[in-house]
């Protein structure tokens, strides 16, 4: 049954390349090579304050995070794909029409994801990084690094697949479980030094390779994946669920707001879609909590950085992912026959985005107060608002209503990184010179408004 695997690989490629052409997608790994090469070349500057061990730590955790992001899309992005392609057209749903079991399909799906993203992310990332390091006379063992980074990536992927299986079986109880696990992690890591971060098995294996560690690494990848396959649960709607008309009430309550009907629709999209509130917990609150947890440890590696500044910048960047939640259920073709333009839809999404930003804003205010820096609250809030606005404006300009998929286009992704990277790093290092320089982030607000204005012009010409 190699045909299924083979076809899934073709499907994945064609699905991506259908959005932005074969060349645009094929060049994506080239962009990854360039970015990772720039990253390793930057060690010429940062090598004085960051040790090689810290660099390796950062790399392995980055790949762990990337793996969990890819897995997360498998978990949360299914509805997006259903909406765009319909279930009947995806091989993952072929058990409906062909004599193949769900478990067999899911096993193929995992193996396909692993191999596909090895070539898309892991190999180019490692190659670029090692090549850049070689230029500045830092030598890594390419094959061992490739293997341990790949294991890191697979660990993140398989853990998120396991989470998705837990969620599919336990439903809302899973949220409680994740909450408990997060608290346990917080307690375990509270007040400890960064050395605990080095226990990540793939990282430990790069530093001191051994057969025992290899077995542990493989176990971390295989055990969660096997459990996911054994307890696989795929829900096909057996009955139609009935809902009372909540749209009317919500839209009426927000009547003062120009886009009340869109806000009401988006609220219902979020709350009724797979994951529902769990989506906010999984893809925003848990990562924010983890960042808050690990940030003090990571900042010990780069002394002098202001933790609140870095946190505000990172949360501002992550907040822009909420724009993706808002656009993932919609295609403009759903509106093209109504008296609406693409800029109308973008404006409605940005209105909802502003409302959703109350959540990260509250987090920023709470953490500022919690750390006893009430006098810095204006600076920190301004920084968060400016970064969030700038990030979303760049996202809208580059991706319009197709955010999650457009970023796989080499040119778009390169543009995104170039527009975001220098600005956020600049903000962080400006604050390092003098905390009050954070006020300079106010410049990002008119820039963001200008970029949004250009976005409306750009996407206004777009045809479905």
């Amino acid at each position, binding site marked *: 049954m190699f045909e299924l695997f083979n076809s899934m690989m073709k499907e994945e490629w064609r699905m991506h390349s259908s959005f932005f052409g074969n060349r645009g997608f094929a060049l994506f790994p080239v962009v990854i090579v360039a970015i990772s090469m720039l990253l390793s070349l930057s060690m010429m500057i940062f090598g004085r304050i960051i040790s090689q061990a810290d660099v390796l730590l950062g790399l392995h955790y980055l790949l762990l995070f990337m793996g969990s992001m890819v897995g997360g899309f498998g978990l949360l992005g299914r*509805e997006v794909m*259903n*909406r765009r392609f319909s279930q009947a057209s995806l091989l993952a749903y072929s058990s409906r029409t062909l004599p193949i079991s769900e478990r067999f399909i899911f096993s193929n799906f995992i193996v396909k994801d692993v191999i596909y993203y090895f070539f898309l992310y892991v190999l180019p990332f490692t190659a670029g990084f090692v090549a850049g390091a070689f230029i500045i006379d830092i030598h890594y063992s390419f094959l061992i690094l490739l293997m341990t980074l790949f294991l890191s990536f697979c660990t993140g992927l398989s853990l998120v697949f396991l989470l998705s299986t837990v969620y599919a079986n336990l439903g809302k109880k899973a949220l409680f479980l994740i909450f408990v696990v997060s608290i346990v992690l917080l307690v375990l890591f509270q007040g400890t030094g960064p050395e605990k971060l080095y226990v990540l098995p793939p990282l430990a294996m790069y530093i001191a390779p051994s057969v025992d560690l290899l077995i542990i690494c493989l176990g971390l990848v295989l055990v969660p994946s096997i459990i996911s396959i054994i307890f696989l649960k795929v829900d096909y*709607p057996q009955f*139609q*669920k*009935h*809902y*009372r*008309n*909540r*749209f*009317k009430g919500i*839209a009426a309550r927000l009547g003062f707001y120009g886009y*009340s*009907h869109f806000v*009401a*629709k988006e609220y*219902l*999209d979020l709350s*009724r*879609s797979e994951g529902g509130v769990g989506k906010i917990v999984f893809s925003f609150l848990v990562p924010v909590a983890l960042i808050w947890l690990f940030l003090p440890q990571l900042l010990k590696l780069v002394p002098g950085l202001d933790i609140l500044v870095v946190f505000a910048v990172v949360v501002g960047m992550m907040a822009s992912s909420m724009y993706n939640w808002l656009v993932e*259920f*919609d*295609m403009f*073709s*759903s509106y*093209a*026959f*109504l*008296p*609406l*333009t693409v800029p109308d839809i973008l404006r409605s999404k940005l209105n909802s985005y502003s409302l959703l930003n109350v959540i990260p804003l509250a987090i920023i205010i709470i953490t500022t107060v919690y750390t006893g820096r009430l006098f810095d609250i204006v600076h920190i809030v301004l920084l968060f608002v400016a970064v969030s606005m700038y990030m979303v404006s760049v996202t809208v300009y580059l991706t319009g209503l197709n955010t999650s998929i457009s970023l796989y286009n080499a040119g778009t992704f390169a543009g995104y990184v170039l527009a975001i990277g220098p600005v956020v790093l600049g903000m962080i290092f400006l604050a390092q010179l003098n905390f009050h320089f954070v006020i300079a982030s106010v410049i990002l607000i008119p820039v963001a408004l200008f970029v949004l204005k250009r976005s409306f012009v750009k996407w206004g010409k777009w*045809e*479905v």
Partner: protein
Amino acid sequence: MIIVTDLSKHFGNTMAVDGVNLEVRKGGLFGLLGPNGSGKTTMIRMLTGQIRPTAGEISVHGIDVLANPLTVKELTGIVPEQETPPSFLTAEEYLYFVAKIRKLENLEEQCEWWFSYLDFAGQKDVLCKDLSRGTRQKLMLAQAFLHDPELVIIDEPLINLDPLMQRKVKDFLQDYVKRGGTVFISTHILEIAREICTDIGIIYKGKLVFSGRMDDSAIGSRPLEEFFLELVN
């Protein structure tokens, strides 16, 4: 009601619509006929301002579609080829959503009439993503008539509907025209055109090969299928 002059649309090297000239009179039920891939949907998307033509002019309600696509969409009811109501609204909520976009008020009675007429009151509180294709088509038909437009443009009106419902929709469209409305439909099912259309156009490989009244002498008393095959062969 609709005047199309030298209309063309290319998609890369593919000529989807090629120099079409067409006039649709007010108060008629016009059927655009053609085989699959002949350019019917592209024509409808251009008429309704969803895509811009490569060349040519379109006037709908006397309004230049290229200059004022939004006004044309405001005045026209449109049912697209693929039924795509937002996934997580119920059928009833979707009609309220469309009503808000079209700035309509007090629709309860009208919505209930549609649910009852098209026999889907039992599914009005089901999410659009869970509705059958037939019910989605009913919902899309209902949204198109919600603002009581003078012109309705429907791409394949009877697709996915059972014979009972097809009858009801055909009756409704004919009655709507009798009440002064204008309907433009596209279809590849010739029996539908023969039964309900007052005027037809036949498009083949992007070119309009015939346009006229259903009782046009060119068609005569021949079966429409014979006339159609003669033109496209």
